[in-house]
């Protein structure tokens, strides 16, 4: 590792974008696989395709914004860290944030009814500051351990880097789906072919 203080190139930023896009698209596609039949049965296959196109479009926007946020975070990283380590830490941040959010969604999906009733019966629990602080603490904790490990273990850095490189290939495929979704949206809105 000799790339200390090297600046990110455009290719690096695009790679970071692809990494940020990966968990968001994976989750959206999983949910779409779950729901698209339901939508098609109640409407038409073309509507179901439109439904998926919009969902992918919203996910693309979210990926861009998440990347923007991660880019801002990059300004806070110590300048002494090499480029690979910085890229890994930023990627890890995107994954940890997405991972916690997916976990939260899963908990809600499984326990929604009970949580909702509990919430209605105990309105004092609806305190954004408490929940926000708890969430930040969880993220900080789940970031701290991997960063410590990465800083001390260059082999781990290399392996993780290789893994992320493979992920970006898959993310490229997701972008292709996004592009198809945008075409569908344009057809539906411009031609009025609903």
């Amino acid at each position, binding site marked *: 590792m000799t790339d200390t203080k090297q600046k990110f190139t455009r290719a690096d930023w695009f790679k970071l974008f692809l990494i940020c896009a990966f968990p968001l698209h994976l989750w959206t596609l999983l949910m779409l696989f779950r729901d698209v039949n339901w939508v098609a049965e109640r409407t038409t296959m073309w509507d179901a395709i*439109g*439904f998926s196109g919009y969902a992918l479009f*919203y996910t693309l926007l*979210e990926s861009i914004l998440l990347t923007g946020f991660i880019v801002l975070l990059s300004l806070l990283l110590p300048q002494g860290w090499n480029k690979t380590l910085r890229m890994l830490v930023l990627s890890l941040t995107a994954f940890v944030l997405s991972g916690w959010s997916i976990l939260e969604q899963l908990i809600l999906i499984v326990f929604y009814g009970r949580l909702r009733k509990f919430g209605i019966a105990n309105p004092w629990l609806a305190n*954004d500051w408490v929940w926000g602080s708890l969430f930040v603490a969880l993220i900080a904790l789940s970031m701290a351990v991997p960063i410590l490990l990465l800083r001390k273990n260059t082999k781990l850095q290399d392996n993780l880097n290789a893994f992320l490189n493979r992920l970006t290939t898959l993310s490229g495929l997701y972008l292709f789906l996004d592009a198809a979704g945008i075409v569908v949206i344009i057809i539906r809105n411009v031609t009025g072919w609903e």
Partner: protein
Amino acid sequence: MRNQLSRRDFLKLAGTTAAAASLPALRMPPSHAASPDMPNILIFVYDALSAMHTSLYGYPRNTTPNLNRLAARATVFHQHYAGGNYTFPGTSSLLTGTYPWTHRGFKPDNGIDPAFETQNIFQLFNQYYRLSYTHNAVAFNLLKQMQDSMDRLKPRQDLYLDRDFASDLLFANDEDTATTSWWQSIVKKGRKGTYSLFFSHFYRAYKQRLLARYADIYPRGLPNIRDDNFFLPEDATDWTLEEILSLTQQDQPVLGYFHYLPPHDPYLTRADFADKFQDDGFEPLKKPDHIFSRGRTYHELAFTRRMYDEYCLLADHEFGRIFESLETNRILENSVVVFTSDHGEMFERGIEKHYHETLHQPVIQVPLLVFTPGQTTRQDVHTLTSAVDLLPTLLHLGGQAIPDWIEGRVLPTFSGAPPNPDQAVYAVEAKDSQQYGKIFPASLMIVKGGYKLHYYTGWERMKGAGPLVELYAIEDDPEEINNLANELPEVRDALLAEVLEKAKG
């Protein structure tokens, strides 16, 4: 978007009837357009209001104090049934005077049979000024299909506190699909989760800030549709009154159809009604789980029932405001006022709400009160009636001919005919069925001669089992406890043959 409670907001949220009753400040003369031959017709539908949950019909909790009082001047129907167990078939029956096997409105995405775009209450009263509004997206789809038959369909979002970002701003040409995807991607956090992992949090935080100012008035959250489209029920009431007061001064009699969401879930009542029934000692009857049970425990159902009952208080209160304003402004003197619902709600047998297959009494028996011009005494009607009877009755009261395609009949007391002991009423639930052809899977109901028969076939939860038939002596057993299907095979077979024949139609 409003940043703080205006004086108007404060007044209406204070829950005083006086504020609405005094709109406008001076008492108006009665409408000069309406007459005894052509009275104004004002229909108020409170979505998912079960007759089995209204104190007017004997429910132990006093959920409808205003209705109890106002009934002293109404014709009250005690055995009134909806056409289906949810909004689309129920409302379609109400507005077309036909059963679901005729209007084919099994699910909103398919709509009703196109013939009923012009065969409906609005078209039949074409000499009236016809206005409608609903909070409910499903009912709105139906009204939209009938839009050419009316003078004005108020956009439902006009009375929301917020508007849909996706449909209004970005994709107005593809509103339905864009909005559905937006809801699922960003808004609809809950049982199904959202596709968005981050937007949804920020969107919710934005909404929470927007809504925080109402937290004291609506401690359980603001009434809403699918966790978005927040609204104040009071806004709809006020708008309705303003419109009625204004329109009844015009040159035409008015047909108004107003379909409000409360007490449909989510059950988010106002502070003055919250916890009214907490620890009141009421214990709902325990009933065994049904084949369509969703596994809700007795305690879960009792809790949700209380939330619903407390929300019924709000619906009742709002109707009280409407009625008093109509009276103060002398509109009752030449108007037929109808209070009813499109379907009921249910909290028993392991099942809650109305998103299910069953046709038990709480989800299918609904209130019906008809206030005729100048009526000062109460009339109680205990014979069987159906939602499909409302349209022919209104035509009769308006002195109009009743077309052949209407399946209902003029409600007893208004027709002058003696009660018919062979009269039957029906209901259908078939939201997973194809629109045309055989109705399958299906839930069918017939009530006749003191018996009520349920017939269920083809539902996924039946796991391939054959049709299920239940029979109850409904007058002696209104809670539907003792299934007599095996004990009274002759009755069962006769009713089953009749309802199957009708459904085959």
